[in-house]
C-alpha cells in the first residue's frame, strides 16, 4: 500500500515542481513588455551611450590648432605587450632654437593586434594618447585596421616638454 501512496505522491510532487517552473516562465511572458532586456542595436545607435572608461581603441586627441601632445618618447611602444604601437620618428631642427629635436613622423596603431589592455595610457608621460569609446571596428579589409593616429600636418603642442 505504501508503494502505491508513494507512486501517486511522486506524480503529484513531479507535477507540482513542473508547475512551479511554468509559473516562472509564465510570469515573464505575461510581463513581457516590462521585462524585456534586449536592445535593438543598430537602431538605437544615436542614443547609445558608452561608459567614459570603456576601452574601444587608442586615440590621440588633437586640439583645434591641429596640435597633439606626443613627443615620440616611445614609452607606449615599450609598454605594449603585443607590438600594437609603432612610432616612426625623425630629428627635425626646432624653428626657434635651431637645435635638432626628436619628433614623431607617424604614430602607427595596429588595431588588429590590440587587446585593449590600456597599458600604454599610464605609460605615456605627456598624456598624448587616451582610450576612445568607439567600438564599431568592423571593416572589410584587414589593412584598414592599421591606423595612423597623428593627423597630417599636426605638430607638437607648446609647453608639453617642459
Amino acid at each position: 500500500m505504501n508503494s502505491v501512496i508513494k507512486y501517486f505522491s511522486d506524480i503529484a510532487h513531479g507535477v507540482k515542481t513542473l508547475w512551479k517552473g511554468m509559473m516562472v516562465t509564465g510570469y515573464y511572458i505575461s510581463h513581457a513588455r516590462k521585462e524585456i532586456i534586449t536592445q535593438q542595436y543598430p537602431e538605437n545607435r544615436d542614443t547609445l551611450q558608452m561608459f567614459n572608461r570603456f576601452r574601444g581603441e587608442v586615440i590621440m586627441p588633437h586640439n583645434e590648432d591641429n596640435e597633439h601632445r606626443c613627443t615620440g618618447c616611445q614609452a607606449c611602444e615599450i609598454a605594449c605587450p603585443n607590438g600594437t604601437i609603432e612610432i616612426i620618428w625623425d630629428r627635425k631642427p626646432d624653428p626657434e632654437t635651431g637645435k635638432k629635436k626628436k619628433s614623431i613622423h607617424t604614430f602607427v596603431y595596429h588595431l588588429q593586434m590590440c587587446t585593449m589592455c590600456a597599458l600604454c595610457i599610464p605609460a605615456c608621460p605627456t598624456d598624448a594618447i587616451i582610450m576612445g569609446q568607439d567600438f564599431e571596428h568592423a571593416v572589410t579589409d584587414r589593412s584598414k585596421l592599421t591606423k595612423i593616429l597623428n593627423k597630417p600636418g599636426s605638430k607638437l603642442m607648446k609647453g608639453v616638454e617642459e
Partner: protein
Amino acid sequence: MEVVDKDKTIPGDALKSQEYFVNMGPQHPSTHGVLRLVLTIDGEIVKRIEPHIGYIHRSIEKMCEKDSYRQIVHLTDRMDYLSCHINNVAVCLAVENALEIEVSDRVKVIRTIIDELTRLASHQLWWGVMGMDLGAITTFLYGFRDREMITDIFEETCGARLTMNYNKPGGLMFDIHPNFQKRTKEFVEHFKKKLPEYDQLLTGNVIFQERTKGIGVMSKEDAIAFGVTGPAGRASGFECDIRKKNPYHVYDKVEFNEVLLTEGDSFARYKARIQEMWESLSIIEQLIDNIPEGPIEEKTNAVIKLPKGEFYQRVETARGDFGVYVISDGKKSPYRLKFRSPGFSNLFILDKIARGSKIADLVAIMSTLDLVMPDIDR
C-alpha cells in the same frame, strides 16, 4: 530430451552489439569551446572517454617568458576568461609578495569585491549554460540577464566587460567609479530576488533532479587524487577553498562559509555553485558599504624585477585552485612561469566518473564540471 545450448540458440554475432567511436567535438554544442572527446559508445552507453585538448593552445607560458611582469597580467585575462579578474589578481599578488609590497586596505577590499562579482558572473553564465545543456534553453537568457548587470559594473569601473585588466602589480589601474557602490548594491538587491527563481525554474524541477542526481558520482578520494578543486571538488567533500586555507585580500576578515557537500554527484556540484552564489552575495554585502580610504597603488619601479627565487601564489577562481608559479632569475621577465589551471585537472576526471553513463549524462557531467577551454589549453 534435447539439451539446448544457450549459446547456439542465439546466433551469436547477429545479436551482439558493437562498440563504435563518436567524435564529440571539437565543434559540438555542449563542449563549450574546442574540446574533442573521443567516445567509445555501446548503444547509448559511454564506455570510454578520451579527451583531446590543445585546439586553442596559445603558449601563454612561453609568451610570459619574454613579457614584463606588467604585461603578463593582461595575458591571464585570456586564460579563464570567466574569472579574469581573479587570474589578474593572482599574478599581481605573486609579484607583490615577491617584492614584499603591502597594498592598502582599499585595494584589498576593492579586489575582494570584484573577485566575488567575477565569481558570481561566472556562476551565472554556468547556470544558464547548464540549463541549456540539459535542454532548458530559457535559463541561458535568464542567467545572462543577471550577468549583464555585473558586466555593466565592470565596464563602468574597469573599462571592459570581460577582459578587463584592472590590476597591475602594486595596486589598481585606477580608482573605482563613483557609481560603483550604488550599482553593486542595486545588483545585490536585484539578484537576491532572482536567485530563488533559479531554484524554482531548475533546481526544484523533477526532470532536472532526475537528470543530475546520482549521475557522475565522484568520491572524495578521487577528487583529491585527480586534483579536482573548486565547487566540483567541494561537492565531494574535499576542503579545497583557498580563500579559507590560505586567505588573501580580506578573506580572513569577512564571514562566509566554505560550501561543503558530500554526495559528489552532478546535483551536488550544481547545488555547491548555487550556494556559493549566496556566499558571494553575502561577502559583497559585508564589504560594499565600508571600502576604506587609501591609496589605490603602491609605488613600484618603472621596470619591475623580481628577486631571484621561486614564488607560488594560489587563489580561488570560480573553477577552483588557480596557481601562479614564478621562477625568477632576477631579470625583468620570469625565467619560467607556470599557471596551474583548475580546469586542466577537473577535465581529466571525466573518464573516471562518466564511464558507463549515457550520452545525455555525459553532457550533464561535463557542464557541472564547468570547463572553460582556454583555461585548460592556456
